């Protein structure tokens, strides 16, 4: 209340000044105020939207392929129940993020340019001057699997203020493009050193959440994986901070 009383006279004074100012012009029909030249608009530097993304690998023994971070206005990196794009297939089977980062709907992309080992974090900056590119997606392969990946799809950052933060704990998805045989020669990660991309689609051919790896220790005798490679949801922790 004290503040309001103190402020009130100032506000009133402002109001009166404004009235006085306008009456001097309106009161004299002959007044011909000098035209004020409109100043040339000063080109303001394009507003930059800058996000710091901290990604942590929560798994026991699933290194993550180089991260694909993208900003976009339209498009989806994946949709549950829909066939994976060839870009996503390549990321999920071989860890190659170039297709997702270069997708036609992508406005800006960034990566940590390296393997993110279990228990480790990576900090990646991603930025754009395109106000409409406010959807954020992230994808990375769990390399000791046939076609498992984790990440975020089309998270809306448009309401995020500078200094604002969002946290996510994504689970693991299955690209559905390669059967989860876990056979020697089919897994590109260090557990096997096998094949990456195989363009044949010998699985359900839709994206779903991953059922988990079975491993030889848990009843899949032909698996090259061991109990060390099992994972559960969530597999990832993602912190997004808007810096600018």
């Amino acid at each position, binding site marked *: 209340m004290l503040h309001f009383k103190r402020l009130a006279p100032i506000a009133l004074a402002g109001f009166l000044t404004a009235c006085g100012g306008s009456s001097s012009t309106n009161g004299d029909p002959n007044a011909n105020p000098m035209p004020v030249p409109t100043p040339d608009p000063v080109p303001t530097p394009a507003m930059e939207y800058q996000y710091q993304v901290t990604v942590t690998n929560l798994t026991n023994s699933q290194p993550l392929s180089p991260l694909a971070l993208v900003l976009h206005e339209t498009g989806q990196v994946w949709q549950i129940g829909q066939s994976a794009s060839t870009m996503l297939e390549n990321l999920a089977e071989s860890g190659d993020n170039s297709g997702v980062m270069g997708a036609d709907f992508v406005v800006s992309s960034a990566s940590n340019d390296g393997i993110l080992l279990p228990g480790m974090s990576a900090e990646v900056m991603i930025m754009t001057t395109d106000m409409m590119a406010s959807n954020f997606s992230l994808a990375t392969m769990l390399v000791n699997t046939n076609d498992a990946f984790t990440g975020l799809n089309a998270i809306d950052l448009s309401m995020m203020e500078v200094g604002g933060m969002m946290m996510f704990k994504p689970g693991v998805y299955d690209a559905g493009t390669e059967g989860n045989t876990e056979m020697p020669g089919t897994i590109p990660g260090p557990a096997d050193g096998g094949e990456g991309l195989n363009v044949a689609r010998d699985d359900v051919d839709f994206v779903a959440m991953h059922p*988990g790896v*079975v491993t030889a220790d848990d009843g899949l005798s032909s698996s090259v994986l061991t109990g060390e490679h099992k994972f559960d949801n969530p597999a990832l922790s993602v912190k997004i901070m808007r810096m600018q």
Partner: protein
Amino acid sequence: MNNKQLLAASILSAFAATGAQAQDLNISITNLTQGIHFTPLIVAAHNGDASMFSVATTASTELQAMAEGGDISGLDTMLMAASADIQANPGAGLLAPAANVETMLTTTDGNMYLSITAMMLPTNDGFVGLDSWAIPSEAGTYTIWLNAYDAGTEANDEMIVGGAGGAPGTPGIPAAPGGNGGTNGTGVSDSQFNTNIHIHRGALGDDDMAAGNSDLDNRVHRWLNPVAKVTVTVQ
């Protein structure tokens, strides 16, 4: 504040937090699994006294019939008796892996809680569930991730025995709708340790479709939580 004011304030805030008034809900349910079907879903808005299931309690016979055989008629009757607003079988049949169904629900006054269940096939008595989610009064879109539960009413023998396995109290799994079940399993388990409703420990399966303990395929019929994503749009 005196007690009366406090009481009034708490009532107001309770009403503000959840939808006491009639509401229109758009509900989207996605099966997130790669290899598990959902039997017909039952979706209901109900009052605080009703529920379809509660963890760490014994399943009702109505819930048991749903979880062992996909039969939602008992739950439907029970919810109608509780004056719930119900959408039974909105997908007109099974909800396949990674498939989605959308439905509308108009709630009546006092039905402030949303519950959803459906049996997971192939399992013995596994079901996907949402228990009494407080429906927000504020318009908006809300996402809920659902887990897999075990009704605790049947041993998880993982043997596919045909339709009879769907009858409450009869062991075995009634069907593997994906057509990818095995045969000649000797049975993973013949007893149920926790007979209350609990988070499902997951299917075990094995890698021999014509023998072994289980008729389930350990590469196909396992899952990790969450098993469903529900998006509720409050209008």
